[in-house]
């Protein structure tokens, strides 16, 4: 694994020197070449999504608080949403937009959507790549339990292969969301763990080999379809799943693994 660049400089130091990764307080800004790398990763994911039959779903910048309430977000992550002045929220994840659009519908066939949004989370941990505001591309699939589980497996296989083709050093780990520690949320976390509902693709981000999740692969069972009232056309329960891509994390993983200059050549 390359953790020094072609000129022998620590890649993170090089990114900072080139003003391609600029930290200011709790915010991080990306330079033009890192932003181009973010767009390049996104274009690849969209390509995969379209090939898989996904429809692009445009979403708004803010999400109604009522959508997050309906999704049970505040029960599980009570301190994690940043309110905006006009009453909307920066979404903590892109896929909530999708469930809101599906509310009270009946799906004639299993379906896949993709959407992208700027998201915000107040995460306590401080480490490279863990941004408070970030761009998340998601693929959402809704169908029968077996169909959704099969889609997730296919996405895990193809995205691991994609990461490895880019020489990223990755591992796929079982994971849980960082639910609020008390009450029923603990039960949701343990159910997630016991049923293998969440996997994360983690990439090494520095010479010490610290991994950071760059994608997650999630099954929701009927949680969102029941909350938002959408069903399959035959009247049976709709199962859902999603794949999330933290695009800045992907770009950073490429820059620190290949070295910034090598990574930037991907977009030339």
């Amino acid at each position, binding site marked *: 694994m390359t953790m020094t660049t072609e000129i022998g400089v620590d890649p993170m130091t090089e990114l900072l020197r080139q003003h391609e990764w600029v930290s200011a307080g709790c915010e991080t800004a990306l330079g033009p070449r890192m932003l181009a790398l973010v767009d390049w990763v996104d274009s690849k994911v969209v390509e995969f999504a379209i090939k898989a039959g996904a429809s692009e779903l445009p979403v708004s910048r803010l999400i109604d608080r009522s959508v997050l309430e309906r999704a049970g977000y505040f029960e599980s992550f009570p301190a994690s949403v940043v309110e905006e002045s006009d009453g909307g929220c920066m979404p903590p994840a892109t896929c909530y937009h999708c469930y809101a659009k599906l509310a009270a519908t009946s799906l004639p066939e299993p379906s896949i959507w993709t959407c992208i949004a700027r998201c915000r989370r107040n995460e306590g941990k401080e480490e490279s790549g863990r941004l408070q505001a970030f761009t998340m591309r998601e693929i959402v699939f809704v169908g029968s339990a077996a169909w959704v589980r099969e889609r997730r497996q296919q996405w895990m296989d193809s995205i691991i292969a994609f990461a490895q083709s880019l020489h990223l050093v990755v591992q796929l780990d079982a994971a849980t969301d960082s639910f609020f520690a008390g009450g*029923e*949320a*603990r*039960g*949701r*976390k*343990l*159910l997630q*763990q*016991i*049923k*293998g509902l969440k996997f994360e693709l983690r990439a090494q981000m520095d010479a010490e080999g610290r991994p950071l999740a760059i994608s997650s692969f999630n099954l929701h*069972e*009927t949680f969102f379809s029941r909350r938002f009232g959408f069903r399959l056309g035959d009247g049976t329960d709709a199962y859902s799943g999603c794949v999330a891509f933290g695009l800045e994390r992907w770009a950073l993983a490429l820059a620190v693994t290949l070295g910034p200059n090598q990574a930037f050549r991907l977009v030339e």
Partner: protein
Amino acid sequence: MSDARDKLLNFINGELLTDPTRRAAPDTPLFENGWIDSLKILKLIAYVELMIGRNIPDDEIVMKNFRTAAVIVQHFGSK
């Protein structure tokens, strides 16, 4: 061991699966049919903790230890 297994099954069938059409046998998968929700899993874990006389760390709460009532008793034993 079968005593512990029977007591656990009585708990599962009597306290967790309140719908009379749902009945677990020793080898019934507990997590593949939506019978156990986020509240019931907490009750199940609390019961097993009482049964074995110790707390169960979260990293032991995985499918290979909780797939069925028989597996739970085989893995955790009893007091």
